[in-house]
């Protein structure tokens, strides 16, 4: 019994790390989590270059118009360490058209919602990514429930360093409309349209 148990533990010490490595790679959850041995193989879960970029398009459906967005620095507050986010999270909100009142709307958010946003920001690169995006979309959608034809475009950014060009960002683009969240593919700072958009900010 004792011998069998010891063999089982030793086997687990080899089988689980290998399994964890494959699952982490395939499903994109952090290699820092769930008992693998791959710390430092991916950025730390609280890595400041992992964040959410929210693009709110209040126009009638369609793709986001990249030229018309502007940054609303209410959550960053000019710093990577905001009052609400007591750690590096880089949750940023971008808004179109510029006349929209997202700062005012969010500043009226309840403490509970702010806590949830904080949790969402922290949970990036953790598991349950799609659910987190949906949660964020639902919060923002409620904020704008009085404005018809809301359409949220959310980019889950991973800001990375690239030894070829220093700054490299890539992310999953989600579209939230009529309580439905759809993944619309990946976007990258290497896209033709994105560098111009970022430079114009």
């Amino acid at each position, binding site marked *: 019994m004792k011998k069998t148990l010891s063999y089982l533990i030793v086997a687990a010490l080899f089988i689980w790390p290998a399994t964890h490595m494959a699952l982490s790679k395939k499903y994109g959850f952090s290699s820092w989590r769930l008992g693998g041995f791959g710390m430092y*193989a991916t950025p730390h879960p609280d890595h400041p270059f992992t964040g959410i970029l929210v693009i709110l398009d209040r126009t009638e459906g369609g793709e986001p118009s990249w030229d018309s967005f502007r940054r609303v620095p209410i959550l960053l507050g000019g710093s990577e360490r905001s009052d609400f986010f007591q750690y590096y999270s880089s949750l940023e909100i971008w808004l179109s058209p510029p006349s929209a009142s997202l700062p005012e709307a969010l500043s009226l958010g309840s403490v509970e919602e702010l806590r949830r946003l904080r949790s969402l920001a922290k949970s990036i690169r953790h598991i349950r990514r799609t659910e987190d995006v949906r949660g964020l979309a639902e919060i923002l959608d409620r904020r704008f429930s009085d404005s018809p034809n809301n359409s949220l475009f959310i980019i889950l950014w991973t800001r990375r360093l690239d030894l070829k060009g220093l700054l490299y960002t890539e992310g999953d683009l989600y579209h939230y409309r009529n309580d439905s969240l759809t993944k619309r593919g990946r976007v990258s700072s290497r896209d033709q349209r994105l560098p111009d958009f970022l430079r114009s900010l």
Partner: protein
Amino acid sequence: MAGVAALFAALILASKPRLYRLGFLIFLGFSAHHIFRTFPYTINHMFLETVFIAVLVLFPARETTDSGEALVDGTATRILQIGILAVWFFSGVQKIVQGYYLSGEMFAFQTLFQPDGDLALALRKGFAFLSRYFETPFARTALPIAVPELFQNAHLAFSGVEKAYFMAPAWLIVIAEVFLPVAFLRRSLRNFAVTALVGCQMLVGWMASEYDFSLTGLAILFSFFPDRCRQTYPALAIAALGYFIFESVGRG
């Protein structure tokens, strides 16, 4: 405070030949509670330490026969030794699979963006020297770069020597992580592998500021040296205490 007192009590119990399993059982309770409290965001280390402590509880170091003769059982030590070699090996393999570490990105991040920490400060000194010596654009860039200023710095690119500065230590560490546990399998290289791993454990512990796990790792690695099986248990108790104090108090 009550938690720290319980940990000290566990340490005292763990040092008593007849009661040490109870001490480790308390440690096990703490780690299980921490995993439950933080799941699914539990950092890998807590799972690993929990398995190690569970091994110490399941396989006692001393057993007394019917004739009263005390026996030393090295089962737990052997499992922990295999465990620490697996940790090093898979840690290296996963870094190769994911690419982030191997590309030097981890060191580049620490250098350019990490606001504090021993490793970041040390890396920045060397990087600043290189940048000035080779007159790269980074020589005129204030470090660390703040996140909001990232887009303004998108034009910056590393020179070859700066890339090498980030990639060389990453490759050396990954090679050591994969090679040393494999080298251990060869009897003639065993002493070299263990000695090198002790050095790597201290180096990596400093680099990552993971002093807590380093204690555990070193305690297990020292057990590879002959006739040290019994000493491993109190050493691990001290390591476990250090770990929980760091984890519970130091990190909130």
